[in-house]
């Protein structure tokens, strides 16, 4: 018996080598890890760990030939992006190479270029034989103001040679003194002139300043999850709602209310939209935008907020949606096609309630470009426990999403930079 097993495995090994030689991506059979890399998925799906850790990971992109590009928030051996290569086709990274010397969040492959952002610029590299040429960087957007709060730049490309860049507001709610109890909200909020929105740039023009771009949408506190929906020809994003209603207005909001308000908003970014930050926040229990207390609100009044653009879906507060990706592949069952995957990085300010998020959600979409049903938990268990009390306890936090040519998807983690690949059998 033992011999038989040995024999079979040798044959299996030999054949796998043989097929790997010829066409690594197509022929090799991907196999999920026995424990799905520590996460839980719907029936029929499996996960394999591509890498146990590349560093403080952010967003991710996968090239046509299957190389994986992970952006980092902190340099690793002087490099800001890690390239993971799978040479034998088993899905596991066999090679890890540093690329580019600047950290940041945004990364997108398109137009035959790889675009990557730092918090103050966007650089692109030509794809030569399927790989970016590190020796030929071109600066596309430059000279952006550096600031730490909501300062990361997420990227998206449309099909008309435009590049979209997020400019988060370096503020919670545009108070004269940020996050300080008793400090008034500024009217008009001067931050909105250069932040609090998404700017559109020419994807092919070098050395553009922010002023050369066009403010595509405004009234958004902070976006990290951003994606161009090819089927709809529209830009979508996830907004991080404001914090600290109770620390700033304890007489108006108790700790539980502050934990559940405002919504994290799923937004359809039509050109010229205004979603109301900082004057308004979204309350999913009342189903509308409410005037912020810093601007005279009382938790019910709407006033100017009545006319602001609404989310297409509202999620529980503070879950921190850090990646958005529309699924266009064929590997997953039909209901997933053109639906949205969202990484909820996980909350930190829901005390005294338990923290929330720390999972990847799926939202089914209809032909009209709107959600066709409620969200579902797609992948969970990242934090390693049933409940997260303090964010620092979480073993992993999902932060980036990408789809590969075969229709499998990748998830990155911000704690150690673990990378999972999700397949459907």
């Amino acid at each position, binding site marked *: 018996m033992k011999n038989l097993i040995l024999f079979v495995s040798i044959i299996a090994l030999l054949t796998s080598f043989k097929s790997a030689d010829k066409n690594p991506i197509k022929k090799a059979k991907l196999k999920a890890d026995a424990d799905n890399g520590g996460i839980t998925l719907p029936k029929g799906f499996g996960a394999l760990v591509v890498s146990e850790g590349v560093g403080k990971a952010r967003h991710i992109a996968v090239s046509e030939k299957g190389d994986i590009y992970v952006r980092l928030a902190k340099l690793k051996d002087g490099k800001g992006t890690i390239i993971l290569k799978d040479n034998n086709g088993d899905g596991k990274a066999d090679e890890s190479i540093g690329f580019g010397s600047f950290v940041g969040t945004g990364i997108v492959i398109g137009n035959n270029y790889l675009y990557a952002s730092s918090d103050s610029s966007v650089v692109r590299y030509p794809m030569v034989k399927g790989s970016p040429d590190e020796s030929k960087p071109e600066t596309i957007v430059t000279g952006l103001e550096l600031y730490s709060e*909501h*300062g990361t730049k997420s990227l998206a490309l449309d099909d008309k040679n435009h590049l979209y860049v997020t400019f988060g507001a370096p503020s919670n709610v545009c108070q004269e003194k*940020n996050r300080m*109890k008793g400090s008034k909200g500024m009217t008009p909020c001067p931050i909105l002139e250069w932040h609090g929105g998404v700017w559109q740039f020419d994807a092919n023009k070098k050395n553009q300043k922010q002023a050369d771009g066009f403010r595509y949408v405004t009234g958004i506190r902070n976006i990290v999850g951003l994606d161009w929906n090819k089927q709809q020809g529209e830009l979508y994003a996830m907004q991080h709602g404001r914090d*600290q209603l109770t620390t700033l207005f304890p007489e108006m909001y*108790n700790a539980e*209310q502050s934990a559940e308000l405002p919504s994290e908003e799923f937004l359809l970014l039509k050109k010229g939209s205004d979603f109301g930050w900082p004057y308004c926040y979204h309350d999913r229990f009342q189903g509308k935008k409410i005037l912020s207390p810093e601007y005279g609100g009382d938790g019910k009044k709407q006033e100017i907020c009545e006319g602001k653009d609404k989310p297409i879906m509202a999620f529980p507060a503070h879950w921190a949606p850090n990646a958005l990706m529309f699924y266009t592949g064929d590997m997953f069952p039909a209901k997933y096609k053109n639906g949205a995957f969202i990484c909820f990085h996980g909350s*930190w300010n829901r*005390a005294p309630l338990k923290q929330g998020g720390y999972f990847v959600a799926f939202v089914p979409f209809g032909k009209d470009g709107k959600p066709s049903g409620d969200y579902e938990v797609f992948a969970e268990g990242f934090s390693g426990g049933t409940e997260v009390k303090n964010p*620092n306890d979480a073993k992993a936090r999902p932060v980036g999403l990408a789809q590969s040519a075969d229709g499998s998807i990748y998830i990155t983690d911000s704690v150690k930079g673990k990378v999972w690949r999700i397949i459907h059998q």
Partner: protein
Amino acid sequence: MKYIISLSLLTFFLSSAMIQKNTITKPQPSVYQPDSGKIIYETYCLACHQEDGSGVPNMNPPLIKTDWVLGDSTRLINVILKGLKNTEINGDSYSNEMPSHDFLTDYQIAEVLTYVRKSFGNQAGPISSEDVKKQRAKK
């Protein structure tokens, strides 16, 4: 279904909570004195620095054995009075900003800092209202 039930319970809960404002519910500590450092910490600091002082990775620093907490008391008092921004804490940088809490009284600041200096595994001397008063006068 479970989701719907909990959602409606929550809505009910929220709306009833809205009616009777001022009900600031907090995790009830086992022993505390009213207005103690712990209560002040829970009201003003916990959201960012967390219940166990461990902070939020990349966002809000821990208050566990940092030079700032254990070290020079005037520097520590100034963090509360003036806030802090873009400063590396023990080799890591944090994206949020520490807002000024100068609206707290000298006594409250002394209490909360003494609480921080004696909690989360920290062991450092107390801060007095007098110390805070002196720093505030210097502004």
